[in-house]
């Protein structure tokens, strides 16, 4: 459906929301079973140990970094078996949704379920929650002892939200920008932002009924050399959009870049900037946490080398003080892991977190400087976003992508300019080598250029696209920086 009214960052009126809801629930037969009041009762009946927001609050209080895997298979009993297998090795559980469901292709997901049942193994890369429907999703939550989050990549996640939240999932990943730009090709940004306003409004309705659902904008975006200020700007915008619809429990995310100073500075600045922008917009009663994603780019095939990447990411998550860490597996280079490999990634992560837990990164002028740079970048970009949107975050986001002010490297979406080109500096931090039309302050841009030039001199070559390609493959070939061979 298209929308009569222009996109704006305003809470959706209840009557308009309810009218839209009738249509959403008719998009697939399983939508008919959803009853909001029953969903509220299901959520209220969850013990505290199964509530995502409570687990996050406890972790914040204790200064602990929680562990969460990704996992999802085609069939319900197999999915429950997988999560039960992983449950003792982690703090928070996921349900990763398959790629057909993410694009609302429920007929294809149905074929995937059938073929998986026939093959005796999952042919889908996740759990098709909409096809399985409310009762089966509820059975997943009931079979587990820990909080479960829906993790996906869905530009129109309205029906998925209705079904899974009514079933007792207590956290929902995604956002109108972060689940469009890296996950879709031709979905207009206005449309995905509007569809996510619906999801956020639904979470807001649960909040009004005393049920706190955690919302997590997807931090890493394309997962490929994304400078922290780019993902921070998107995360903060999505946080603002969620708060406006009534969400109160927000987890802002960031994908590991690989340079220690930059990664620690990124998580610290993300938390402080989130707080700054949310309060400046007039919100004060929110619960803000952070998530650090272990390296989202290409992994080494060799499993021992992959453990090295996982361990380093775990150390950074702990030193940076992230509230939770999303864990990779030794099978990452080959795609979807076996459950054994998935658990091995969790065990590796737990070992490092437990060893680093009592250690803080010492006060450091180098980290402080990096934090200041990221903050100035984010403030400059978001100032332009709000200027373009005449003060409105939703409209500003759409216009900023059109103008190339917000620009995510290596993203598939047609509405993304793709003019900004990142590259690593001589210490492996991700810098901007070609800013495109992103409005960074002149002295900050000079700093980026100096750092890239320093590397270029060290390698005796110009910073051209080949250097970027070398960086993209570097970690899978056992290095952080793609030096010439």
């Amino acid at each position: 459906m298209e929308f009569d009214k222009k996109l704006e960052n305003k809470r959706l009126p209840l009557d308009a929301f309810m009218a839209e809801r009738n249509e959403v629930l008719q998009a697939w037969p399983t939508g008919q079973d959803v009853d909001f009041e029953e969903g509220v009762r299901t959520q209220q009946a969850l013990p505290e140990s199964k509530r995502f927001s409570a687990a996050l609050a406890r972790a914040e209080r204790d200064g602990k970094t929680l562990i969460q895997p990704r996992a999802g298979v085609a069939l319900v009993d197999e999915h429950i078996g997988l999560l039960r297998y992983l449950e003792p090795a982690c703090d928070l559980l996921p349900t990763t949704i398959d790629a057909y469901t993410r694009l609302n292709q429920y007929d294809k997901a149905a074929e995937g379920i059938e073929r998986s049942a026939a093959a005796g193994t999952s042919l889908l890369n996740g759990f098709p929650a909409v096809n399985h429907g409310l009762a089966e999703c509820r059975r997943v939550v009931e079979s587990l002892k820990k909080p479960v989050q829906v993790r996906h990549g869905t530009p129109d996640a309205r029906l998925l939200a209705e079904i899974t939240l009514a079933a007792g999932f207590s956290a929902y990943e995604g956002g109108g920008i972060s689940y469009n730009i890296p996950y879709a090709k031709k979905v207009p940004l206005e449309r995905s932002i509007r569809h996510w306003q619906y999801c956020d409004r639904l979470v807001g309705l649960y909040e009004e009924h005393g049920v706190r659902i955690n919302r997590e904008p997807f931090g890493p975006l394309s997962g490929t050399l994304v400078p922290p200020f780019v993902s921070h700007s998107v995360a903060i915008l999505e946080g603002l959009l969620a708060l406006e619809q009534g969400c109160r429990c927000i987890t802002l995310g960031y994908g590991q870049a690989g340079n220690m100073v930059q990664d620690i500075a990124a998580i610290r600045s993300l938390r402080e900037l989130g707080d700054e922008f949310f309060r400046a917009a007039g919100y004060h009663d929110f619960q803000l946490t952070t998530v650090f994603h272990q390296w989202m780019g290409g992994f080494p095939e060799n499993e021992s080398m992959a453990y090295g990447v996982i361990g380093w990411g775990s150390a950074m998550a702990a030193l940076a003080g992230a509230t939770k860490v999303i864990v990779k597996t030794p099978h990452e280079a080959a795609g979807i892991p076996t459950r054994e490999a998935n658990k091995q990634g969790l065990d590796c992560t737990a070992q490092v977190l437990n060893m680093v837990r009592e250690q803080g990164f010492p006060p450091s002028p180098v980290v402080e400087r990096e934090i200041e740079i990221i903050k100035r970048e984010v403030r400059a970009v978001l100032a332009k976003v709000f200027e373009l949107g005449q003060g409105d975050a939703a409209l500003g986001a759409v216009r900023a992508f059109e103008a190339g002010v917000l620009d995510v490297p290596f993203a598939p979406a047609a509405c993304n300019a793709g003019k900004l080109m990142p590259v690593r500096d001589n210490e492996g931090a991700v810098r901007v080598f070609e800013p495109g039309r992103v409005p960074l302050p002149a002295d900050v841009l000079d700093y980026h250029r100096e750092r890239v030039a320093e590397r270029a001199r060290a390698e005796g070559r110009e910073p051209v696209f080949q250097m970027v390609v070398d960086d993209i493959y570097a970690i899978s070939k056992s290095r952080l920086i793609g030096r010439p061979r």
Partner: protein
Amino acid sequence: MSQPTAVLGVIGSDCHAVGNKIIEFALSQAGIHVVNLGVMVSQDEFIDAAIETGAQAILVSSIYGHGEIDCNGLRGRCMERGLDHIVLYVGGNLVIGKREFGEVEHLFKEMGYDRVFPPTVDLSNVAQCLKQDIAAAA
């Protein structure tokens, strides 16, 4: 001989864009004219583009694990549309789970793909194979 032309894309509902951009870059550098359809390309879109551009090859990528479902039947559809001698390559993380590459290669060759590549393949080798296979098919 004129410059070889290949249609490139990521099949099905797969949105992995990074490798796609790099394959385009590497094959273009090797002197191949690349018609890049980007991510989320259907079988018919591959074939339409190959017919429109007179391409001698279709290069299919799949990273997200649904390759067994998405890639099946492309050879048959090419035949139906008159692309009798087109070179078909497939590469990426083609199946769910870590399986022996030889097994995966066999599975996709049975589907009618001329060559099957793991994600770690050196792209200059792909370019070289492609030029040879196109010359042999002509």
